[in-house]
């Protein structure tokens, strides 16, 4: 790889990370906006991320991205400084900007032309919505040392004003910090202040400081009263002064007389402070606070110092390393190779062992060999763990998409997400992204009804979409459920008939479940017109195929008027799956145990024919049978198992089942499943291949796709078999 390519990769991966963070922060901002004024910390984080992105893009020479981020930065700066309002429309614009940035990044990655039109439209909007703020400078409202005001930045002044407008009290803290611990102490202070206020700025006083300490003037806004704050910040030492609002007491103390204000020597008891306050009637704190201080003086005097440990964790920096998943694959392959070397060593050892008279040496070898095995296993496990990532990232992206789609479709719904912490293989998360996006769009576009229709149906006006993930044994279940209109099976059937996906003769015998499953057929869309939102090229058939490629299964349940629920069952890791190894005409196949319900012996006398295909009765119900030898057109092998005894492996495809007939069951095995090369992409029926030991590969069956194939061929045969009827 050349330096340039490497640099590009690094840029892309870092930019991608920033976009992820931006998306997360915007969602948080959206939430915070619903309950009150926007959280300035989030706005700042977003501003900083965009700023970093701009720098990165500039460095890398991605001009479109740096142009967009430049304008976005200006917009965010205006919001941050209160020069622009953060309305839902502006928030939408921010969401869109992040989206377009992502697209630009993708274009950059693929060396394609950037989506210029979108970019231009966005830039225009970003530039067009500035509104100057006419707020009076905070210095006129507050009784504060003008020298401090002089050094406040525009942003700090804006925060100060915002806090005053929000009715928070403004305090000035003068605290000595040791130079050694100042960073930690400030973080601690911020953490303490955050729940009920905000630190606006801190400035060195330049007074009375020793060589190893520094005195800071800290300007802070808080909901707390002076006394409460004194209790909270007691451990810091120093003084706290409340800065009076001039507008509320126009004739009170002028700026030159700060001692008029109540002062708490932090570290002295709050009660003393309260008394001090009482001695100066007409000044702050106001009456209610005094009352409170009197009510529980004992408690306030024995406030424990803040828990140092707890606060220290706030600033604990996570130590992470970004690793290309391909590197992990290489590592995993190296470990597999090691395992192969190990088994060769074992065989060699077994050969030499009988001839050796060195019994102690043999014992030592056995011991070493066991240790080796254990370490190898630990290594394998370790690599697998590294590959695991929480679904949270993906879910956040989905949340963003849902928000956007919902707005465009003018649908109202709450998105309830649970289980974002559930971990799955990174590769699965990547592959799952498109199918889930599509399903989410469907749920909003086709699932949730317009508010009027919901009300008419006696449902709550605002719909609900639930996205749940949880682990179940060696599997992860992801459910997407909506309380929308449900899938109209009549309509599905009608379309399927129109498009010839189903034989008219079979309509009456087709179960409701089968009809629902028709939505996974290529070419079936029940919407007359593909909406701007859902018509993006991927249908449910692609969703199903993508999930099957991951060794997963998708199932659908739906009731008209009640809602639709999709359930995706996935293996936790692609790397290791448990399979049932079976032989057919000398070929060895592996069937993922996730798809196997049970395996039973078959006696040919139990087989009967229904509708031209083989079936048997298992536990009181009819089981459709299929011979793998005929599905794969395997010729009778010389080395094939000669016994007449065969076995039926009952496999699950969603909630449907089918019995695959095999010659021999070899047993269960944990295998590392690998994808077939792209030259075999057109070959259907296999999910991949796995090393079954002794360097023999076995093909892993894709049972859901086999099931579909069998059902489809039954339908076709039905057409042929019953020309008259």
């Amino acid at each position, binding site marked *: 790889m050349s330096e340039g390519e490497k640099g590009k990769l690094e840029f892309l991966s870092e930019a991608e990370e920033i976009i992820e963070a931006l998306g997360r922060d915007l969602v948080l901002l959206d939430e915070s906006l619903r309950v009150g004024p926007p959280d300035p910390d989030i706005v700042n984080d977003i501003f900083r991320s965009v700023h970093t992105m701009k720098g990165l893009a500039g460095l890398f020479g991605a001009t479109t991205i740096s142009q967009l981020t430049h304008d976005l930065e200006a917009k965010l700066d205006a919001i941050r400084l209160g020069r622009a309002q953060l309305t839902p429309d502006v928030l939408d614009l921010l969401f869109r900007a992040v989206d377009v940035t992502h697209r630009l990044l993708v274009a950059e990655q693929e060396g394609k032309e950037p989506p210029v039109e979108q970019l231009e439209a966005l830039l225009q909007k970003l530039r067009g919505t500035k509104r100057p703020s006419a707020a009076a400078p905070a210095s006129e409202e507050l009784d504060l040392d003008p020298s401090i005001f002089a050094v406040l930045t525009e942003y700090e002044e804006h925060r100060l004003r915002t806090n005053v407008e929000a009715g928070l009290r403004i305090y000035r803290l003068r605290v000595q910090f040791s130079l050694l611990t100042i960073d930690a102490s400030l973080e601690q202070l911020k953490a303490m202040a955050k729940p009920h206020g905000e630190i606006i700025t801190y400035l060195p006083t330049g007074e009375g400081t020793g060589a190893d300490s520094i005195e800071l003037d800290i300007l802070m806004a808080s909901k707390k009263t002076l006394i409460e704050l004194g209790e909270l910040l007691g451990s810091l030492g120093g003084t706290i002064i409340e800065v009076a609002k001039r507008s509320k007491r126009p004739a009170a103390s002028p700026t030159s007389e700060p001692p008029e204000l109540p002062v708490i020597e932090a570290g002295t008891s709050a009660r003393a402070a309260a008394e001090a306050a009482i001695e100066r009637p007409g000044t702050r704190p106001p009456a209610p606070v005094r009352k409170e201080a009197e009510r529980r003086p004992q408690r306030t005097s024995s406030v424990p110092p803040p828990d140092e440990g707890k606060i220290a964790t706030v600033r604990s920096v996570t130590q992470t390393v970004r690793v290309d998943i391909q590197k992990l694959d290489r590592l995993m392959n190296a470990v597999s190779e090691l395992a192969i070397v190990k088994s060769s060593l074992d065989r060699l050892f077994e050969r030499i062992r009988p001839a050796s008279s060195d019994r102690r040496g043999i014992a030592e070898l056995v011991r070493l060999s066991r240790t080796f095995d254990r370490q190898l296993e630990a290594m394998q496990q370790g690599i697998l763990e590294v590959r695991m990532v929480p679904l949270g990232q993906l879910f956040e992206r989905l949340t963003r998409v849902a928000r956007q789609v919902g707005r465009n479709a003018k649908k109202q719904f709450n998105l309830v997400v649970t289980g974002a912490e559930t971990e799955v293989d990174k590769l699965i998360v990547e592959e799952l992204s498109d199918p889930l996006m599509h399903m989410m769009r469907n749920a909003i576009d086709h699932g949730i009804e317009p508010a009027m229709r919901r009300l008419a149906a006696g449902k709550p006006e605002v719909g609900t979409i639930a996205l749940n993930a949880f682990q179940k044994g060696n599997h992860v279940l992801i459910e997407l459920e909506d309380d929308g209109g449900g899938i109209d099976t009549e309509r599905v059937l009608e379309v399927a008939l129109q498009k010839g996906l189903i034989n008219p003769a079979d309509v009456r015998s087709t179960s409701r479940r089968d009809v629902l499953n028709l939505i996974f057929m290529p070419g079936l869309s029940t919407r007359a017109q593909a909406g701007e939102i859902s018509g993006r090229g991927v249908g449910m058939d692609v969703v199903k195929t993508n999930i099957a490629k991951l060794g997963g299964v998708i199932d659908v349940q739906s009731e008209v008027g009640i809602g639709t629920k999709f359930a995706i069952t996935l293996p936790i890791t692609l790397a290791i799956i448990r399979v049932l190894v079976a032989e057919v005409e000398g070929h060895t196949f592996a069937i993922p145990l996730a798809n196997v319900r049970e395996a039973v012996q078959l006696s040919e006398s139990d087989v009967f024919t229904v509708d031209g295909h083989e079936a048997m009765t298992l536990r009181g119900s009819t089981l459709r049978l299929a011979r793998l030898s005929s599905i794969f057109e395997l010729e009778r092998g010389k080395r094939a198992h000669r016994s007449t005894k065969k076995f039926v492996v009952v496999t699950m495809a969603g909630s449907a089942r089918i019995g695959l007939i095999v010659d021999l069951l070899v047993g269960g095995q944990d295998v590392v499943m690998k994808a077939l090369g792209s*030259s075999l992409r057109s070959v259907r029926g296999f999910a991949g291949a796995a090393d079954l030991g002794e360097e023999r590969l076995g*093909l892993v069956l894709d049972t859901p796709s086999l099931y579909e194939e069998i059902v489809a061929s039954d339908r076709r045969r039905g057409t042929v078999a019953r020309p008259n009827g």
Partner: protein
Amino acid sequence: MKALVRRGRATRQIERRPDEGGVTEYLGFRVASSNYALPVAIVREIVRSGHLTPVPRAPAGVLGISSFRGRVITVIDLGSRLGLASSVVQPTAGPIKIPKLRILMVDIGQETLGYLVDEVLQVYRLAPRDIERATTVGTDVGMHVTGIARPQEGGEVVQILDPKALVP
């Protein structure tokens, strides 16, 4: 009983040397009694053929899949891909064992494919002037041949293959 089965072991790693004065290195090999060559740069390794697992429904010419350095490699019968006699009489079932043939691991696009050949000959160092363009040669060469070279005076001809045409 456990048979001791050896997987394809690298017979030798091919060193890649930069081109010298327009000279390109080609690896020569024999398929169905004709000589062919591919640029050394795209041949990763030459291995002895090991266990091959046949893949039902695979395109014609695909012998099966084999595990190579922990990866699943599609192995293609170069003879049948070129429309010549197959290097192997495919047994009706079970893993195919081909004891004497060689598999060339070739990077084609994003994928590494294994090509089964009858015999590996040698590395030829050829300058562009040594290679006759296929278009000027008669019609009896296939689409997959880009040129023809005669490395030794009066020796056998070597057909230079177009790697892109080899994908099944």
